[in-house]
C-alpha cells in the first residue's frame, strides 16, 4: 500500500458476541487528512467497531487496514487513541502520564515530558503540569489523557465519544484540538452520539445502527437525505390557498409548512403571486444533521439502548 491509501479501510467487518452480531458487516473508508465521524445511538456498535479497527479485538469476519497495514499493531506507533472508558494511573503526575502514553507509542520519555509541558500550557492546563491525576477534575483528567493520545504526533487519531464528560468550555477546546490535529496533517476518526459536534467539525461521517452502516458521506449529503422544509406566510390570507400549495402542506399559525418540492419553489411562487395571495413571509429551512440522523436510523433506534 502507499501513502495514497486511505487512513482507515474496512471491508465487511463482523464482530459477534455470542450469537449477536454487534458489528454486522461494516465497510469504512476514512481518507487521509479527514475528520471522520462515526455516528450512532448508544449500543450501535461504535466502540466495538473502533476497537476492532485498532486491533484491540479481532474481527470474526472481514478485513481492515490502518495507515496501510493490515495488522493494526504494525501501525501502533503512528496511532493515538482515546478510549471511551477513560483511565490514567491516579498517582502519576499529569506530565508523566502524558509522557508514559507517548512512550507506549515509541516516543522517548524526555521528548514526551517536554512536549507534555508545552501542550498543557497551550491547553490552559499549565498550573496542573506537576499535579497528580487524582487531584485533577474529571474533565481535566480527560483533557490530559487526550493530550497523551496525541503527544507522539500520530498520523491517525481515534477518539471514542471524546465530547462526553466535558463541559461546554472544554468541548470547545476539544473541537479546536481536533481541527488543529487535522491541520497538522493527521486523520481524525471519532465516534459520538451527539450530532452537534459532528455537524461542526466532520468532513465525512458514517451513521451506524444495530451494527450496520446506514449512511456514508459528507455532512451536507447526510442532510440532503431529507428535503428542506418551506414555511410560507401569505400576504393576503384568503380561503383557497391550500389548493395551490403542495398536498403535504399543513397550517402553522397564520402560515403553512410543507416540503420543498423536488422541482423547486419558483413555479409555486409565481402561481401564488398571480393568484393574488402574495408573499407575506418565506423561509426555506435545511434539515439539521440530527433530523437526518433520526430519519436514517429511525426514531426508536435513535433513542438507542439505555446507556
Amino acid at each position, binding site marked *: 500500500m502507499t501513502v495514497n491509501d486511505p487512513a482507515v479501510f474496512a471491508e465487511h467487518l463482523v464482530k459477534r458476541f455470542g450469537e449477536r452480531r454487534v458489528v454486522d458487516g461494516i465497510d469504512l473508508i476514512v481518507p487521509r487528512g479527514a475528520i471522520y465521524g462515526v455516528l450512532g445511538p448508544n449500543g450501535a456498535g461504535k466502540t466495538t467497531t473502533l476497537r476492532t479497527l485498532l486491533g484491540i479485538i479481532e474481527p470474526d469476519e472481514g478485513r481492515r487496514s490502518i495507515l496501510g497495514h493490515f495488522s493494526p499493531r504494525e501501525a501502533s506507533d503512528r496511532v493515538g487513541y482515546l*478510549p471511551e472508558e477513560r*483511565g490514567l494511573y491516579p498517582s502519576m503526575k499529569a506530565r508523566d502520564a502524558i509522557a508514559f*502514553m507517548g512512550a*507506549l507509542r*515509541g516516543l522517548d520519555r524526555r521528548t514526551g515530558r517536554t512536549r507534555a509541558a508545552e501542550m498543557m500550557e497551550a491547553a490552559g492546563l499549565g498550573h496542573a503540569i506537576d499535579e497528580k491525576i487524582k487531584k485533577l477534575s474529571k474533565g481535566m483528567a480527560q483533557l490530559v489523557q487526550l493530550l497523551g493520545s496525541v503527544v507522539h504526533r500520530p498520523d491517525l487519531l481515534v477518539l471514542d465519544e471524546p465530547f462526553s464528560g466535558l463541559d461546554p468550555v472544554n468541548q470547545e477546546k476539544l473541537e479546536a484540538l481536533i481541527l488543529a490535529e487535522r491541520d497538522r496533517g493527521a486523520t481524525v476518526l471519532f465516534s459520538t452520539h451527539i450530532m452537534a459536534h459532528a455537524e461542526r467539525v466532520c468532513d465525512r461521517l458514517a451513521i451506524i445502527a444495530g451494527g450496520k452502516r446506514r449512511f456514508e458521506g459528507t455532512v451536507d449529503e447526510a442532510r440532503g437525505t431529507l428535503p428542506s422544509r418551506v414555511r410560507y406566510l401569505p400576504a393576503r390570507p384568503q380561503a383557497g390557498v391550500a389548493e395551490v400549495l403542495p398536498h403535504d402542506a399543513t397550517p402553522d399559525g397564520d402560515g403553512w409548512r410543507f416540503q420543498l418540492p423536488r422541482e423547486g419553489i419558483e413555479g409555486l411562487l409565481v402561481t401564488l403571486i398571480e393568484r393574488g395571495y402574495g408573499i407575506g413571509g418565506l423561509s426555506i429551512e435545511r434539515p439539521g444533521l440530527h433530523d437526518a440522523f433520526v430519519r436514517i436510523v429511525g426514531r426508536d433506534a435513535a433513542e438507542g439502548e439505555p446507556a
Partner: protein
Amino acid sequence: MSNLLRTLRQAMTIARRDFIATVFTPIFLLFLFAPVIMGSFGAIGGMGAASVADGRADKTRIVAIVPDANARTIAEADTRLRAVFRRDEEAPPGLTTLRPAGDPAAQARAAFASKDYEATAVLYGPLETPQVLYGPRGKRAADYLGLLAAETLAANRLNGDVPRVTAVKTALERQGGSAGNRRQSASFAVFGVFLLNLFLASQVVGTMAEERNNKVIEVLAAAVPLESVFLGKLLGMFGVAILFVGFWGTIIAKLGSLLPPDVASALAIQAAVGTPAFVVLFVTYFTMAYLLLGSAFLVVGAQASTPREIQMLALPISVLQMGMLALALAGTARPDGWIATVAQMFPLSSPFAMAGRAATSPDLWPHIAAIAWQLLWVTIFITLGARLFRRGVLQSGSAKPFWKRARG
C-alpha cells in the same frame, strides 16, 4: 523497528511504570525491611530466652571440694581447659572451690542446697579417685570435673611446670560441604525462592487489579500487544526482586566480611555444584519460578474484576504454590527418591526442586535440561495467559469473567 525490539521496548515501558509505582510507596519500605522486622521479632524472642538462661547461668556453678594446696592448681587448670570452648553456652558453669570440712560426702550433698549458687556437679575426695555428684543436666559438668581432677593431678606431678605447646594451626577448606550442610543449603535455597515469589506474584496481581479498576488497561492494550503488557509486568516486578535481593545481598556481604572467618564459613552456603554455579542456578531458578507463578497469577488477575475476586482466586493459587513448595522440600529431603523426580519434572515445582538439587548433587547437565523445559512452560504460560487475558478483559468495557459469561 523489528517486532522483537518493539515488544521489548514496550515491555520495558510498562516494566518501568510498575517498578516505580511499586518501589516508591511506603508499602515497599515495609517489604524491603521485612527481614529486619522479622529478624528483630526473632531477636526479641531470642533475647528473652537468653536473659532467662543468663539469669540461671550466672548462678550455676560446678564445685570442687579440694584442700587449699590444690585450689590454685585446679583454678589454673580450669582456665586452661575452658579456653577450648567456643561459645558461652557450651562452656561448663563457673568453678567454685570449697575447703573440705567434716564429712566431704555430706558437704558435697549440702552444696546442692546452697543459696549462693546453683550447683550442677560437685567433686570431692582424693584427686586420684575423686567422687562426683551431679544433678539434672549436670552429666557433662561431671565429666568436666573429672577432667579437671586429672589435669590438676598432672600439674601437681610436674610441680606446676605444665608444658606450653603452641600448635601451628592451618585451616583446611572442606570440598563441597558435608551432606547435612548441603541439605540445609538446599532447603534454604528452596525456601528463599519461594518466599520472594509469593510476595512478587501477588504484587503483580495487585498492579493488574489496579489497571482494571482505573481502566488504564484499555490504553495499554490499544498501544501494546498483551504479550508485551504481560512481559512488562513480570519484568517490572522482577526489577523489584533484584532491588530487594541486591539490597540484602550487599548488606549480608558487608556483614559477612566483618564476621570472624570461622563463623562466616560455618554460615556460608555449601552447594554440591560449587558456589559460583550455585549462585547462577539459584538466580535462574528464581527467575523461572517467578515467571511461571507470576504468569499464573496474572491470568487470575485478568479474570477477576474486583480486588475481592482477586483475593478469592489468589487463594487457590497460593495453596497450590504451598503444595509446590512442600513437594520440592520433600524432594530435597530425599534427593534420589521418586518424589524428587516428580518435583523436578512438574513445571510449577521444577524451579524449586532444581534449586534444591543444585545444592545436593554436582551434575550440571540436568539443570540445562530443566531450564529449557521450564522456559518452554514460561512461554506457554505467558502466551496462554495473554489469550485468556484478552478474553477476560478486552471484549468490552462491561466484560464478565469467562466463567460467568458461559452461563449467560
